[in-house]
């Protein structure tokens, strides 16, 4: 087994960490240390007056309401109409992989968020495996992948890069943007990952799982849960593929891995919740556990008997086939525990594998926690890290009943999330805590979409005389530039970040900022800036393509039309929310460059710097 990606770098640069030489000092920074220390002191003293926090809760909008107001804001307008370009841009930040001028114009022309949603719901899914089969061509004697599906595993090192390329391509260019965006959100809730001994060598299994999320993104949550449960990729990731009833090996018990995580992470969570997502406390004010270890044991008995379609209950690595890796698991009943089970206070009489699993998943689907638990996380992934209880309650109510008596209708839920007053007007309603930090993947997709990054010919050939493939892509497969984040590459089933993550100072104020967990490990500005400014080190090291189209921006700089430039960038990138001071500082910089007789920077490079300044600024990082 060879680790994929390891050998991709054509020009490995070996730097000794400490092999550095002294350079002249940078005195400019010194004075700022004091500012930082001051900032930290201030951090500890900032607090939300409890009255304000209470007010946030108290003024939360009632379900179905449209008339609630605060002093400075009211809903006199029809909140579902697209009233200006900036609102359109903000909406597309939540519902797509980033607005472009074209997508903003299109939404504005439509004039209605609802009709945009309806159109998105009706688009056929762009499936990643289909793209692979249509586009990945073998060269230098290697067969096309569509004709040689077993090469997915045989050449998994090489084709693991293709998995990334496909994701970047479709995230950026697929028409079914909302579906792809929601699939990413699902992949961060219903987590599987390359970081697993078996899945490491099965890029087709990972792609197939992602396609399941794409396909089911707008379906019913119970169907999604069912399909996830039967997918061999999840079966391998949480180790219940080949999970046998107790005593199959002397003294053994069923594997509890999926049994626990399907409750803790995929449906009901650890604690009993109110419909608004807050903790339902007992009489002593303590949280109440949703399930016990006994429930986990019983649930583990349910998930016995499944294996993939290789024909062996405990398939060896050599037994696996492309078909088995990408088709639902099947039951081998002799390994299933047919006894009655008692789960979360309910009885399952006990029967064959399929009957038991359907019954157990139905208990989870119907659990009152599932709506608020799942809906709050989807809100966090798409709109805001700290939704008001009212927002969660309104969406949960739609989860519980779409208005036609159907529970778990995800089209209705996604519409409720994106059309809620708090989503459309959160910046005005909750200026102190509205928004979410963009995760690194979304920085890059937005950059590509906003500036029409062009594909280039990709040649995958990581070994001399080894398998070789070609297709058109951004060639962004070989980089670690997203650091801790790439699709389906979390370190654990707890995702790159959890819904509860926050820097300590925010936690003290009762706020979370999950995506900052990714920023915390590694700064991402340097890499982002490297990509935007086309830094030769970054591009050459990783052989990146993704040529940005900056003719408009370059021309505006040449003509010194700075306001026009900044108007457009503000709309495209920060949805009209670039702060006045940021804008002023950037404009001053442009003017300053102008006065130099030999500035040594081309107009295009200046455009790149300006884009980079905006996209690495806090104004941009916090999507509002």
């Amino acid at each position, binding site marked *: 087994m060879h680790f994929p990606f390891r050998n991709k770098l054509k020009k490995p640069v070996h730097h000794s960490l400490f092999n*550095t030489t002294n350079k002249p000092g940078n005195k400019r*920074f010194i004075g700022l240390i004091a*500012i930082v220390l001051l900032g930290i002191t201030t951090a500890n003293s900032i607090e939300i007056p409890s009255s304000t926090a209470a007010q946030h809760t108290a003024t939360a909008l009632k379900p179905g309401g449209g008339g609630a107001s605060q002093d400075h804001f009211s809903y006199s307008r029809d909140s579902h109409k697209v009233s200006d370009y900036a609102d359109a841009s903000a909406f597309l930040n939540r519902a797509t992989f980033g607005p472009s001028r074209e997508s903003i114009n299109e939404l504005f022309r439509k004039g209605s968020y609802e009709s945009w949603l309806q159109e998105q719901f009706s688009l056929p899914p762009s499936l990643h495996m289909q793209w692979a089969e249509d586009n990945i061509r073998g060269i230098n004697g290697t067969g096309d992948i569509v004709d040689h599906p077993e090469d997915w595993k045989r050449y998994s090192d090489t084709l693991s890069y293709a998995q990334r390329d496909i994701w970047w391509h479709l995230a950026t260019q697929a028409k079914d943007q909302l579906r792809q965006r929601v699939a990413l959100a699902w992949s961060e809730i219903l987590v599987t990952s390359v970081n697993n001994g078996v899945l490491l060598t099965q890029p087709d299994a990972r792609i197939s799982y992602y396609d399941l999320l794409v396909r089911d993104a707008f379906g019913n949550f119970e169907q999604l849960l069912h399909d996830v449960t039967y997918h061999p990729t999840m079966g391998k990731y949480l180790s219940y593929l080949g999970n046998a009833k107790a005593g199959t090996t002397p003294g053994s018990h069923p594997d509890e*891995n999926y049994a626990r995580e399907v409750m803790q992470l995929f449906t009901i969570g650890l604690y009993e919740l109110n419909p608004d997502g807050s903790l339902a406390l007992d009489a002593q004010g303590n949280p109440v556990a949703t399930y016990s270890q006994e429930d986990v044991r019983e649930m583990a008995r349910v998930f016995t008997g499944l294996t993939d379609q290789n024909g062996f209950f405990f398939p060896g690595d050599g037994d696996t086939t492309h078909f088995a890796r990408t088709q639902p698991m099947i039951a081998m009943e002799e390994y299933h525990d047919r006894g009655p089970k008692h789960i979360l206070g309910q009885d399952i009489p006990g029967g064959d594998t399929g009957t038991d699993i359907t019954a157990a998943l139905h208990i989870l689907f119907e659990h009152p926690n599932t709506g608020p638990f799942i809906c709050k996380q989807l809100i966090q992934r798409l709109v805001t890290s700290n939704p008001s209880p009212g927002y969660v309650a309104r969406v949960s109510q739609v989860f519980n009943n779409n208005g036609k008596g159907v529970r778990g209708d995800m089209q209705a839920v996604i519409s409720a999330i994106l059309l809620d007053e708090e989503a459309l007007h959160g910046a005005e309603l909750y200026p102190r*805590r509205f928004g979410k930090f963009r995760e690194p993947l979304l920085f890059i997709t937005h950059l590509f979409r906003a500036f029409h990054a062009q594909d280039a010919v990709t040649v995958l050939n990581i070994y001399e005389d080894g398998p070789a493939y070609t297709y058109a892509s951004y060639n962004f497969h070989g980089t670690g530039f997203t650091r801790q984040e790439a699709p389906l590459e979390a370190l654990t089933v707890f995702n790159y970040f959890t819904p509860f993550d926050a820097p300590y100072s925010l936690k003290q104020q009762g706020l979370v900022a999950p995506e900052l967990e990714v920023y915390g490990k590694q700064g991402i500005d340097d890499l982002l800036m490297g990509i935007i400014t086309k830094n030769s080190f970054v591009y050459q090291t990783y052989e990146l393509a993704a040529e940005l189209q900056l003719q408009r921006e370059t021309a505006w700089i040449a003509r010194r039309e700075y306001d026009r430039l900044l108007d457009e960038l503000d709309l495209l990138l920060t949805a009209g929310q670039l702060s006045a001071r940021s804008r002023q500082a950037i404009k001053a910089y442009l003017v300053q*460059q102008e006065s130099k007789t030999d500035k040594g920077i081309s107009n295009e490079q200046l455009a790149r710097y300006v884009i980079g300044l905006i996209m690495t600024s806090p104004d941009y990082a916090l999507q509002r």
Partner: protein
Amino acid sequence: MSNTNYSRRQFLGISLAAATLSPLTGLARQLQTKDSAPGTPYKALVVVLLEGGADVFNMIAPTEADRYADYRATRENIALPRNSLLPFSHLNGNGLNPDSYGMRDNMGAMHSLFEEGKLAIIANTGTLLQPVTRSDVENGAPVPFELFAHNTQRSQWMLGSATGAEHQGWGARIGNHFYTEGNPWFNVNVSDSNNLLQTGGAFEAIHFDDAYVSPDTMTAYGFGPESGGSELGQVYQTLYKQQLESRNLLMAAFARKRMDELLRPNRLEGLFDNVLNFDGFNDGVHETGKPLGRQLELVAQILSVRQEFQNRFQTNRQIFFVNQHGWDTHDSDNAHQVGYLSDSLGAFQHALADMGIENQVTTLTLSDFGRSLTSNSAGTDHGWGSHAFVMGGAVNGGDIYGRMPQMRNDSPDAWSDRMIPTTAVETYLATAAKWFGLSDAELGSVFPNLSAFPERTLGFMA
């Protein structure tokens, strides 16, 4: 991901060229240490998180025939073969562990350290609210909330408490005792995870990579004075500074965090001029995340310039956090993880010996939880109590501390097939913290629930 690591190292490379830009002035003045701040000699704690819940029962196993038979009958297909174990003799100083044990056959390095008296085993330690027996648990005695869940149990280890009342990590709390205003270099996170252990002090724990990567590569892209981009760099910082007092609390927190990260590395000039390089560390094979060996190598390198840190930052004490992924072995044996841990710890202790600071650095392991005694056919599930390892010249090694449980499902130490901890997390950690310099009163403050347990410390350190 390994390729992520690879590129990270590359970026570390280019970043360091510029990391040394600014002279370090002024900071020493601003760091205030209280009179009780620890003096010399230098001491460090290195905390190794075995992430995912380590199956320690496949690291240490009984060797005597009867005990082994129990172990074998309980673990069945995942039991280690008796004749493969590396037997060791322990002092049985506390009289609680008369039986003999052996280590897994690929733990040669840790076995040698144990025999040399530099490694101790802490038996069956875990999260507790109060001492409990099997019958206590069966009769509803209080036990920690959400046993067996990764995140909650790991959190309780990091907080040094299972009561739910603590929100700062014990590393951060120790720092607050030592340094009134905090010390940015007291808690150093070398892992690829953020961690609660070091969260909540006056300074967020420095993430060592962050310190290098961000600002200096920004310099390389034309955002620093060296490449003629100082004007750009000023605009860049302006965009952050102007949001420090943002009305949006998330925005303000982010701006503060990034400004801190951006500026901190500029305190590093010359700090690593005399850094040592070490042999013996490796990347392992198929490691998930940043390999433990690389992390420990980095800690050794920082320790090699500890005098510079002491001179500039008064860091006579430091806590380093490192982690190793891959221990959640539901469907596999953990041979690979065990061997790599042993080799990496061995290399680290060797590096400390080369620097002559074996007595000044103590390394301790902790994990989410132990694992089930019985097999699920392929691996094991989430458990509770687990053994831990403490390593260093100041450790009274070659012995087992606390009491080894009887490894049978029907043993009085088992709740079903999970081990009920016989030593609290608090007692284990307080022993190391006492050596680190905390007074008895401070131990009670850092580990508020310590008084619930009969023993405050275990005696594996002076």
